Structures are given as C-alpha cells and as structure tokens.
C-alpha cells in the first residue's frame, strides 16, 4: 500500500511526465519529419478526440451511442459549407470549426432530449438510425453537394507546413479534450454520470437531475467531434457523405473506448492511441476487409475477456498475482 503523500508524489510525477510528452509532441514538427508521420499522428490525435468525447456519454453514462460519426460529419459539413458560402480566409476557416461544433451540439440537444429517455439497446438503435438518417439526408440535398460532396480551397503553403499546422491544431484540441474529460472524471458531473450508469433509479433518488445531466453529457460529447470534424474537413480539402459519415468511424471509436476501458479518461486515451496505431498498421499492410474482420474479432474478445477494458484487465491480473504471492509467501 502506498501512503497518501506517496500517492500524491506519484501523481505529480505522472503530471510532469504528461506535460513533458505534450511539449515533446508539440515540438515534433520542428524536426521537419516526413509529412506522412505528421498525418499519421494527426489521425491518432483525431481518434483520441473522438474516443474521449464518446467516452463522456458512452463510457461514463453508459449510454452507447452507435451513431457518433454523425456529429463529426455535421461539423465537417458546417465548416465546408461556411467556407464555400462566405469565401473564408484560412484562419477564419479554422475558426469556423467552432460553429461546426456548435451545430453538432445543438443537433445533439434537439435529438438528445427525446432519445435519452430510451435506455440500453433502444438508445443504441435510435442513435444508429439517427446517423443513417443524417447521412442520407445530407446525401440527398443538392445544397450540400449531394453524393459528390464539397471541396474546400486548400491553404497556399507547402505540404509539410500545412500538415504541421493541422498537426498542432489537432494536438491542441486533443489536449483540451483530454484535460476536460480528466477534470470531468473528478467533478460532480462525472460522478453523476457514473451513478447513472450503475443505476439510474438510485441516481434519481440521490437527487441527481438525471435528464439534465444526461443531456449535458450528450451535448458535450457531440461538441468536440463537431470541432474535430470541422478541422478534418479543412485537412481533407474534400468531403463527401461517404467519408465523413463513415459507419466504420462510429464503430472504431466505440471499440477504442471499450478496448481501453470506458468511464476513465486514461482508458479512452490508451484505447484510442493503441488502436489507431493498429489501424494505421492494418490499413497499410492488409486488405480493408481483413482489417475489419480483425476489428470485429477484437470486439468479441473485448466483450468476453475484458468487459471493463484492457486497463482493468491488467490491473486485475496484477492483483491476482499479488494475492498469489501473498498466499504462497
């Protein structure tokens, strides 16, 4: 057992470590690495943002949203639409990802109000349907480019500068989201959400205003993907319903969070980082179908063998080992 003071010291060490990693990551583009590495890490950051945001509603509150890519896509379309209609400058386009997040958040507010009354499988189904509906509606409206999608004027800078700019932007967003979720985990909101996950009736009798807490969590978990979607649209310079409403993204972020362990900021972070590296590896070296088969199998393995995520899995293993050592010694 560690004493409280020692635990505090340990926490501080981790804190410095995290700051060090963040600083090193932010300085990485100065080494002028190949644009490939910048875009690879950019994708990792993007997935961390998405998984952490999903974690707010799916991990903490236990409301499995299977349609979270809709918020990402809405953000992407908002930015692309604003840029095209208002002929925004590059800086304004980057800033327009914030309205992207606001659009996603307000849609979440509107649909969350009725949907969050449903529990368990019904919520999962309704969010899945919602994502399909948004996808198909956007695809069938000519104003948003229909099936062909929208183009965004690229920045007039060398490719590695552009990559570095997006790298830093997504890194900043990721740090903000991770810090936010970490703060939330200890806050009244986070505790309330966990209570709702464990037992919603008990949460109500404890005086938690469950509808308000849930809708707040849902709106927050939609806002960040919206912002990320806005940035990503500008990064891609071309968006279509097929690529920003891709069901695979919804699936991956659920898998990442559950893999790492939902309901903890560190779990979603670990899950997103490890799986997005695996994702990168798989998309480079094997056919897309095989990669997806592996994701599918991962889902099965996660649910059967580590229902509380990989972190909890190893923690439990270590505890069992310690107990065995105690018994034998």
């Amino acid at each position, binding site marked *: 057992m560690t004493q409280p003071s020692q635990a505090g010291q340990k926490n501080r060490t981790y804190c410095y470590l995290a700051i060090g990693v963040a600083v090193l990551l932010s300085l990485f583009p100065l080494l002028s690495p190949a644009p490939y590495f910048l875009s690879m890490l950019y994708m990792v950051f993007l997935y961390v943002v998405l998984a952490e945001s999903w974690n707010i509603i799916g991990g903490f509150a236990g409301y499995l949203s299977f349609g979270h890519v809709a918020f990402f896509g809405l953000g992407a379309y908002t930015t692309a639409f604003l840029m095209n209609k208002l002929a925004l400058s590059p800086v304004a386009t980057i800033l327009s990802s914030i309205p992207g997040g606001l659009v996603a958040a307000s849609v979440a507010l509107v649909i969350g109000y009725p949907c969050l009354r449903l529990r368990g499988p019904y919520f999962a189904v309704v969010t899945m349907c919602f994502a399909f*509906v948004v996808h198909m509606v956007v695809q069938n409206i000519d104003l948003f480019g229909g099936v062909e999608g929208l183009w965004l004027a690229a920045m007039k800078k060398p490719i590695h500068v552009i990559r570095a700019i997006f790298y830093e932007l997504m890194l900043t967003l990721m740090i903000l989201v991770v810090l936010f979720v970490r703060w939330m985990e200890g806050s009244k909101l986070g505790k309330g959400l966990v209570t709702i996950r464990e037992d919603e009736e008990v949460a109500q009798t404890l005086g938690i205003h469950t509808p308000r807490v849930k809708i707040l969590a849902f709106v927050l978990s939609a806002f960040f993907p919206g912002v990320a979607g806005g940035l990503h649209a500008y990064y891609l310079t071309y968006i279509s319903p097929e690529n920003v409403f891709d069901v695979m993204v919804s699936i991956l972020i659920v898998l990442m969070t559950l893999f790492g362990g939902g309901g903890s900021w560190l779990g979603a972070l670990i899950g997103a980082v490890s799986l997005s590296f695996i994702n990168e590896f798989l998309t480079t070296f094997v056919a897309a179908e*095989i990669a997806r088969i592996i994701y*599918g199998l991962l889902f099965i393995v996660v*649910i059967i063998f580590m229902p509380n995520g990989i972190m909890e899995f190893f923690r439990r293993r270590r505890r069992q080992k310690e107990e065995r050592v105690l018994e034998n010694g």
Partner: protein
Amino acid sequence: MFEILLLQSLVSGILMGGIYALLGVGFSLTWGVLRVINIAHAGFGVLAAYIAYSLLAKTGLDPLLSLLITLPCFFFGGMILHRGLIRPITKARETIVASMVLTFGLAIVVENLMLWIWKADPRVLKPSYSGTAVFIGEVGLPIPQLVGFGLAAAGILLLYLFLNHTHTGKAVQATWQEKEGAALMGINLQKVSEIAFGMAIAAAGLGGVAMAMMYTFDPPVHNFWLIYMFLVVIVGGVGSILGTALAGLILGVITGLCMAFIPYQWINVLTFGLLIVVLLVRPQGLFKTGV
C-alpha cells in the same frame, strides 16, 4: 391504371412483408428468450443467400433444395455460436447491451468475410423459374417472389407450431416467461437457449434466401435488413410470433405503397425515420413484455 399500380404495390408489399416477418421472428426469439439482441442476425441471412447463390452457380442446385443442406448447418452453427460466444457473456449484468456489442463485432466479421469471399458486387439469385409470373387480372405475381413468400410463411408456421405444440418449444416459452421458474421445473436452460439460438439462426438463413429471391443483395445490405427487423420486432412486440408476423406485413404494405409514390432514395430515410418515431413515441407501449 392508377388502381392497378396501387394494387400491384400492395401485393408486392405483402410479399415483401412476409419476409421481413420471418427475419423478425428469429430476431424476436433470441431477444425475448435469451435476452440477446443479435446484430449479426441479418448478416447470417445474407450469408445463407450467398451460399444458395454459389451452390446454384456452381452446381445448378435449386435454392429450395440447397436449403435442405444449409438450414441444418445453420441450426448447428447457431448452437455452436451460442456455446462459444453467447454463453460467456450471460453472466454480465447487462446481458442485452453486452450481447449487442458482441454481435456487432460478429456482424462486422460476417460482413467482411462475405466481402472478401464474394466481393462487393450486388448479386441476384436466379433459379430456373425467375422471370416468370402468374397474373391475376392485371396484377402480376412473379414466381420467385411467391416462392420467397411461401418459404417465409412456412418458416413462421413451423416456428409457431414448434413453440406451441412440442415439448421443447413449450420449454422455450416457459424460459421466456420465467427463467428461474423454468429451471426449477427441471428445464435445462442451457440446452433450451442453444436450441432457441440455433432455430433463430436457421430462420435467418431461410429469410435471407427468401429475400434473395426478390431483391439483389450485397454484403452490407444486412444493415438495412437489420433496421427492418428492429422495426418489425418493436412494433409487433418482443417475443410475439404472431405480432411480429403481422407487423412484418404492415411494414411491407407501407413500404410497398411508399415505393409507388416516393423517390427511391428517400425510402430508407422514411424507414429509419419511422423506427425513430416508433421508438420515441411508444418505447414500451407496443411491447408485450417489459423492457
């Protein structure tokens, strides 16, 4: 002319609805008895359609005959799946949600295995009698669709008879109503669950082949079938065979009529929207059993 169009859409709607019903019945069975929502259910239907397609293309075996081989395989495959995958999670507190995530993974595996083996091109099951039709007045009834509907009706009838007139079927129903009570009466829950899951997978296979008689199919199509199944089961009531069958027919008629009047690309928006509305307006109201 307008009446004929209307009548024709009505008839195709009913034929289609029968198959939604068959797909929904198996789905409803696992949901009701086992507390398992099998997201991969429609995936197995598409798999059966592909197997029938391959057997027809390679050996010329009629889909109706090849079903005699595939259905037992699906039944036992379902039992094995239950033992290997579903059983380990039944200890989880929230079986339904855990099963959803698990079978979600299974659906991804099945879909991509099919993409890998058969590629993404849409296929169509063309038995010797395809392209023929009988006419009642001016309304045409294509033979393959009639065969598909016949398969669906037979499948639902068999399931209904099994559940109501056999010892095992009654054990399944007893488990459905009161799990612990059934166990106390000496019902082997494990065996009953396995049989129910096997039946559901076999029904999915039958439904898939019936569906393939009417429409082109490709691996991702199971997502749309899944939405129809959810609609049918939720409207008809989880666990009610006859309710599910009726809901299937109603949904078939609605989509059939809509297809006559609404541009094709909006049909799915309509179906998904309908499911959202049903879920939101009557989340529990339409169920026979509670949530």
